[in-house]
């Protein structure tokens, strides 16, 4: 029976993240619930996941046995049944009726297929008894969690937003009995205990403070103990880490049960289990203490609302913990980042570079043959070597190259031969494009890859395109005029342009709210813009008119980004999901749901197989475009993430946030590998140089900073062992990595771009006061 039910369960997981290619916008949520199984894609991903899952098995069981709380947050269709089941289980356990617990559990999982999820945590506990069967079950459980790491996280927030009935279910978790006046005593007791333990454990156990504090406070509020809640808050809010202050501010405004109902942020806090990573020793200590004191209240909260990820090894230090915590939902579970990510680059299509002799002579006096050779070599090396980490060429169907694209590729290669090699001794020149008279209205900027065009999105809902070269922008002639053109002539492409419309900039009108994101297509024919009005618009840069308005997000769309190969694009907004679109579909192809707050920032991986999103919940998620799974989940930022950048080789990710820090991530191992401190305000722009040696960051504090990314990446030893622990010691070497800092007079940096020759372009609006 167990074997039987597994595939079904997998469909369920997949259904959450998969959206059928064609579904009307209105049905979207329904589609998320019961999408048809897409077996093909499932099968494709299975093998890797299986191997990964088994390798992870030991760690998983370990955590399972120790933290044996059943998952309250099911998110399954039969959630209410499950809730009651869990309640019964709890009751039994509280009354020490362990036998009945075991029996009921076994019964339940046999009867109720969906309930197997409950075993995610507790399955290990009964593993001994069930022998082989249980083992296979476990392996599948871990597979499931690896394949769909957001299984417990994803569906619920989405549902809580749309399905009202769920809210009461979620809130009912608070309706337990307990003497509210004792909360302070409990909390103080735990605090005293944690303060009295050895230093090495104290830092780890201190992580408990914040989630416990919040849950206890919410429980008091929910049970209408308003004054007690207030007193509790005032007494203990000062103990919390400073990076939780934003959350505490939201929390302190919330004093009534009614407030809870509309507050999505806190509902999310309830439904998603706060993840703590604690070493085995520290956990044992805590468990012993709570058992000795019979401190059920706290134990219940820990079991119901926290997920304690236990690892073997040295307890982590305070700074290690601080670097990873700060997100809305605690840290990452280690198994979440185990899935294989094909971070390598795709094979470059082979294009013959026509070596026109004039060009060579003009450029180089060393003689033609040599030149030709070097060019061929550089091309050959790229195309021959197939990166072992690269995805299959056709994993994601990509548009075919047009002739114009090939021409552009040739241009690119020519330019790249003239590229300056950057390094600590050889810093790039920076050209700063200031927007004058923008009256604080500039909200987004983008450059084309060849740096010939520049687009600005403004708060007055206009989008404006400038030519960054002396070449002026021209529209295509009207249809009537086009009819008159001789189609056979050689310069037909030149003739179709209307010379009368030539100007340095063009305005694009169409949005009805501030434009928060703009992105050029790689072929420079299209421009995307996302706006507060909930739409993403596609503009033609030939006619300078709007071609499509993509409606799907009902709330402001904070960011949009074209795939590096065109055709696809991703958008993310206030509705807490990111959507993948294709330009010729008016509905999204994928919905990436899982973030607990606004998706503020979206970027495509250089190989177009993955999408990364940053959110107000202070986490970063990497999504697989193929199956919509969340394959990486990064925590560590202390504020909303406003900028993301992949390194050109696709291996690393940099992220910048309102806390003024840049964090560096190793995608393959799923680890944080660096922290660049220095900025004093929100980082709105991040960009790697074309060869990846330099990371440039631009911020609200009016500075552009250059960091030695090569050194940051090289210093890190990320082998499989470190990856297994899920954390590595971070060196505090921001000052050494900082290569340059350039102040602008009064211009916050909103965008950075490296030209093909590695000249850095920065853009921002000049603030005149």
């Amino acid at each position, binding site marked *: 029976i167990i074997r039987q039910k597994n595939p079904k369960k997998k469909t369920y997981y997949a259904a959450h993240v998969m959206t059928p290619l064609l579904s009307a916008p209105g049905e979207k949520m329904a589609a998320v619930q019961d999408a048809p199984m897409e077996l093909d894609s499932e099968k494709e991903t299975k093998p890797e996941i299986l191997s990964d899952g088994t390798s992870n098995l030991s760690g998983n069981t370990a955590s399972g046995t120790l933290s044996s709380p059943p998952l309250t947050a099911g998110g399954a269709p039969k959630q209410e049944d499950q809730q009651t089941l869990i309640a019964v289980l709890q009751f039994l356990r509280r009354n020490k009726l362990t036998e009945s617990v075991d029996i009921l559990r076994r019964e339940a999982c046999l009867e109720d297929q969906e309930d197997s999820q409950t075993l995610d945590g507790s399955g290990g506990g009964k593993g001994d008894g069930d022998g082989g069967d249980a083992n296979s079950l476990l392996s599948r459980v871990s597979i499931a969690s690896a394949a769909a790491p957001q299984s417990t996280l994803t569906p619920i927030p989405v549902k809580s937003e749309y399905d009202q009935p769920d809210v009461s279910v979620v809130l009912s978790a608070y309706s337990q009995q307990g003497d509210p006046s004792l909360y302070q005593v409990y909390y103080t007791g735990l605090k005293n205990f944690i303060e009295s333990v050895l230093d090495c454990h104290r830092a780890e156990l201190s992580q408990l403070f914040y989630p416990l504090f919040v849950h206890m406070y919410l429980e008091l509020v929910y049970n209408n103990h308003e004054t007690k809640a207030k007193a509790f808050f005032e007494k203990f809010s000062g103990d919390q880490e400073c990076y939780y202050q934003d959350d505490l501010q939201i929390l302190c*405004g919330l004093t009534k049960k009614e407030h809870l109902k509309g507050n999505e942020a806190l509902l999310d806090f309830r439904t998603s289990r706060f993840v703590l990573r604690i070493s085995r020793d520290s956990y044992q200590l805590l468990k012993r203490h709570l058992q000795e004191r019979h401190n059920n209240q706290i134990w219940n909260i820990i079991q119901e609302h926290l997920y304690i990820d236990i690892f073997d090894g040295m307890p982590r230090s305070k700074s290690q913990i601080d670097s990873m915590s700060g997100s809305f939902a605690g840290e990452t579970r280690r198994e979440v980042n185990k899935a294989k990510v094909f971070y390598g680059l795709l094979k470059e299509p082979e294009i013959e570079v026509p070596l026109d002799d004039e060009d060579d002579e003009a450029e180089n006096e060393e003689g033609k043959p040599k030149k030709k050779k070097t060019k061929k070599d550089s091309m050959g090396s790229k195309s021959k070597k197939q990166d072992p980490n690269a995805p299959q060429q056709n994993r994601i169907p990509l548009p075919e190259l047009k002739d114009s694209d090939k021409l552009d590729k040739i241009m690119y290669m020519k330019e790249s031969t003239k590229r300056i090699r950057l390094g600590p001794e050889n810093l790039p020149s920076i050209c700063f*494009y200031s927007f004058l008279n923008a009256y604080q209205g500039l909200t987004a900027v983008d450059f084309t890859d060849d740096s010939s065009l520049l687009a600005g999105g403004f708060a007055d809902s206009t989008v404006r395109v400038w030519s960054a070269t002396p070449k002026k922008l021209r529209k295509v002639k009207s249809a009537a005029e086009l009819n008159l053109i001789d189609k056979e002539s050689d310069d037909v492409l030149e003739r179709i342009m209307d010379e009368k419309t030539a100007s340095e900039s063009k305005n694009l009108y169409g949005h009805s709210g501030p434009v928060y994101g703009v992105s050029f297509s790689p072929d420079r024919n299209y421009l995307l813009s996302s706006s507060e009005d909930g739409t993403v618009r596609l503009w033609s840069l030939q006619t300078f008119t709007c071609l499509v308005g993509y409606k799907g997000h009902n*709330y402001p769309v904070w960011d949009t980004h074209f795939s590096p190969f065109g055709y696809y694009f991703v958008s993310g907004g206030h509705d807490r999901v990111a959507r993948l679109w294709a330009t010729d579909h008016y509905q999204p192809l994928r919905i990436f749901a899982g973030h607990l707050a606004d998706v503020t920032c979206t970027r495509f991986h250089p190989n177009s197989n993955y999408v990364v999103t940053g959110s107000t919940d202070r986490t970063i998620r990497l999504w697989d475009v193929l199956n919509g799974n969340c394959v990486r989940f990064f925590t560590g930022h202390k504020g909303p993430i406003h900028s993301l950048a992949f390194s050109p080789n696709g291996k690393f990710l940099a992220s910048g946030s309102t806390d003024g820090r840049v964090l560096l991530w190793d995608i393959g191992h799923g680890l944080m590998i660096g922290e660049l*401190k220095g900025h004093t305000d929100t980082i709105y722009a991040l960009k790697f140089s074309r060869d990846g040696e330099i990371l440039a960051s631009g911020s609200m504090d009016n500075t552009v900073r250059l960091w030695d990314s090569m050194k940051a990446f090289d210093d890190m030893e990320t082998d499989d062992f470190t990856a297994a622990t899920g954390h590595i010691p971070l060196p505090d070497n921001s*000052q050494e990595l900082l290569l*340059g800092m*350039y102040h602008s*007079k009064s211009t916050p940096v909103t965008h950075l771009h490296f030209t093909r020759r590695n000249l850095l372009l920065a853009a921002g609006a000049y603030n005149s006061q």
Partner: protein
Amino acid sequence: MAEERRQKLCSVILPTESMKAIAESVGVGSLQEESCLALSEEVSYRIKEIAQDALKFMHHGKRRKLTTGDIDHALKLKNVEPLYGFQSQEFIPFRFASGGGRELHFYEEKEVDLSDIINTPLPRVPLDVSLKAHWLSIDGVQPAIPENPPPVPKEQQKTDSTEPLKAVKPGQEEEGSIQTKGQGASSAEVKGKEKMRMKPRSTHELSVEQQLYYKEITEACVGSCEAKRAEALQSIATDPGLYQMLPRFSTFISEGVRVNVVQNNLALLIYLMRMVKALMDNPTLYLEKYLHELIPAVVTCIVSKQLCLRPDVDNHWALRDFAARLMAQSCKTFSTTTNNIQSRITKTFTKALLDDKTQWTTRYGCIAGLAELGHDVIKTLIIPRLSVEGARIKAVMDGPVVSNIDKIGADHVQSLLLKHCACVVAKTRPLPDMVDQYKADYGYLGTMLCSHVVKARAQAAFQAQTVNRTTLTITQPRPTLSMSQSGLSASSGSRTPNIIKVPSSLTLMSTRPGTPTQPSPPATKYIVMATSAGAASTQQVRVLNEFVSLYLSRLPRHLYHFRACLTSDRR
């Protein structure tokens, strides 16, 4: 501190009275206290929620200020109709009134005359967005161009000069914005490291480009081509990268003044003073360090006995006025409780003024210098002296003709006194203006002062009227100084750079081809010559000594070497 803020936030709830007031305004009469409380809690919570959403819009708008638009958008998120037409020029548009035991707030709604609105000129059309590119960095080095901030910000120039041990490389003093509890130890370590850092040895070598620039600028400043000079002064006044060259400029000016006072070269003195002004206009320079050189030079130009070769013809008075204004400006900007520039300058001037033997030229300078320091100084130091000065002027005017020069001097002092005192008297002295009383109070100058005061009062009244009438367009003419004789004009006060164009035919030097001290200088070149320190001392005005002695101790060593550089500039 953060904790305090948080707790305050926690307790912030709208007062129940406002709930009552709002309820009344929509026609709900007696609201119970409990409902008020419930309402206010709910409303406070919702307002906070909206504010938190509005912040998101601010962040995505890449702004630091929350706007009403953000709040509109946040309301839209909650499906609430935004507030239409809420705009106010003022921060708080409410007015408060009380009376008859009632207190209320109300909007002040003035009646507006339609014709006024129609006749008001349209506001200027806002400028269109435009793009401007500049180099923020070239191969890792930030060029010192006006688009970039000054390479060494003023604050750091200050710390460099006042606390050399604290000076660190820019960027290294900054620490991560996030200070978690556990990082206390590590940050203390960092601080320890900073303390260990030795004082950076400051080299004052100029690059070749800087040397060229310095040469060009100084030559243009004292050269004959007015257009070039204007450009050079503009450059001095706006360029952000002059920090390195400041000591050179400062010495150039002080040495130049020293030499040219001896040689009575009025034109050069004027040019040097204009350089001082340009330096002071440059917002990126930390001049405090070089006041010991600049102030004596300026004071010399105010009070020196003789500034030109023919005191009867040349308008050295204008130079004194200009320098006096510079002095007043530097008092305003640089005077602190530690250096006491203003009080020391005032003392120096007063001492010279009180001295009977002071010459008319110096006397004029002292009075001008004092008068520029403001009305209070005029009131306390000059007006009590009016009768004494009047008697002295009378002696020259009515007495036997001693020398023409004295007479001109007395005449200038008289008009200067009248000009400055009239407006002060007009403000302080109560009406009516009786000539006899004026005579009794102020002696010889009383009669003329009275007529001046009457004129000043009339003008003030007229101005007040015009100000009242056209509140929308107040165009106050910037006080400018024009010198009738030499044609030199200089603007005063403002820190904005402005170029003064002077017809070259009117400059003093070109009209006089030869002077005794300069055997046969071509009209285009002037001597800026450094002399040994003691040579000109007899010619120096005594007031210098005080400053020199004070600042000598702080004088950077490199300045001594600088004289060698200067002499090489000699032609």
